């Protein structure tokens, strides 16, 4: 009997330990990484429409272009403070290429402002014809690249 009780305690302890382990895999930093990567995916999905039209991968459609540009503007206007959490950089958290310098060099605010300005330009242009869209996508891509140049680890 005592032996069974002992065994049950051990099993319960084991379950508790397993519970802690699974709580760790749900830790807030990992969730933050997932959230910001999802945000980036949404940029990408809308850029695929605008860039796809600019590159001739799909036909120009003013309504769709405007919708994608409006989405980009909405995304750019959202506060991302809850998922760019200090301490969630590459090397500290698995699965992220965000470099620690994001939180230390003070340059990220200007990058965000440049992106918002480029997206606003796209919002004005996207519905106004393919040439206008083509002219507006350069600054958007340049802004993406400017941030990725300094703040994202190179990948394989």
């Amino acid at each position, binding site marked *: 009997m005592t032996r069974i009780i002992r065994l049950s305690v051990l099993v319960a302890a084991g379950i508790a330990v397993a519970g802690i382990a699974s709580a760790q895999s749900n830790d807030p930093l990992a969730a933050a990484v997932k959230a910001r990567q999802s945000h980036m995916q949404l940029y*990408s*999905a809308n*850029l*695929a429409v605008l*860039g*796809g039209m*600019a*590159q001739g991968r799909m036909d120009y459609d003013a309504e769709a272009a405007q919708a994608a540009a409006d989405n980009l503007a909405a995304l750019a206007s959202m506060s991302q403070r809850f998922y760019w959490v200090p301490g969630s950089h*590459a090397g500290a958290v698995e699965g992220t*290429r965000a*470099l620690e310098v994001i939180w230390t060099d003070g340059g990220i605010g200007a990058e965000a402002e440049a992106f918002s300005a480029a997206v606003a330009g796209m919002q004005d242009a996207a519905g106004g014809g393919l040439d206008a869209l083509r002219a507006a*996508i*350069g600054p958007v*891509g*340049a802004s*993406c*690249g*400017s941030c*990725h*140049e300094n703040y*994202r*680890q*190179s*990948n*394989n």
Partner: protein
Amino acid sequence: MIRWILAACALAVAAGAWVLSGPDPLPEDALDGLVADAANGERVFIAAGCASCHVAPEADAAVAAPVMSGGRRFESQFGTFIAPNISSHPDAGIGAWSDMDIANAVLRGVSPDGAHYYPAFPYTSYFRASAQDIVDLAAHLRTMPADPTPSLDHEIGFPFNIRRTLGLWKLMAGGPEMVLAGDVSPEVARGRHLVEGLGHCAECHTPRNGLGMADYDAWLAGAPEPAGDGRVPAITPDALGWTAFDIAQYLSTGFTPSFDTAGGDMVEVIENTSRLSSEDRDAIAAYLLALPRSGG
């Protein structure tokens, strides 16, 4: 007696090493009959990415006439290299250099006074360029602004600070044969000229051995990021999985086929490739797709 023989052998080895490590400049007639075309020189300048390294730190390289005053720092496992002034200034820059001086620098990695350059200056790619390219480039460089900023010494420790040893390094490093050998279409040949030569893509995209020499068996198969953080991706056809259109669009816009963008040092590369002709971007794509699969 044996001691004398050993001493004589050591002396012979040392003398041999001294001879082998000497500079190997171009033949005196290498540029004979070539007429400079400064407009093509600007294309060479952009394709070779000269400004990406030689403009002042934080200066914009992607402008019509960048100021090539040098000063950018490049960390490596051998120390820190500092890009020199190659503006048209006669003292601080290369304004007083002859075409032959410039050709020996770019195609042979040898300075006007016969010293070896460090391969941070990617002559191990540039030596696949043509003499015509360099004569054109020289004409273009002379049109660019002069800047009096003095070049700084590299911060390199012993034994790498003995430039003479670079002569042996050059002999071991191989080249300048084309890596994708044999008869190829004119478009692939143009792409090969750009990728293997002027564009010096392999300097980052091909791994190096412990002595910093390219591993030609893993050509463009990806490598550690030179500054030590992350990796430079493989760009062999199977690793990339992109079409010719995808590659050309990436080189033009920086957008990947899934509408992510270039990052890291590739952003500056795109600033150059976006200013090439669309034919040249198509040629680069054709070359990359003509490479053997890396199996990676």
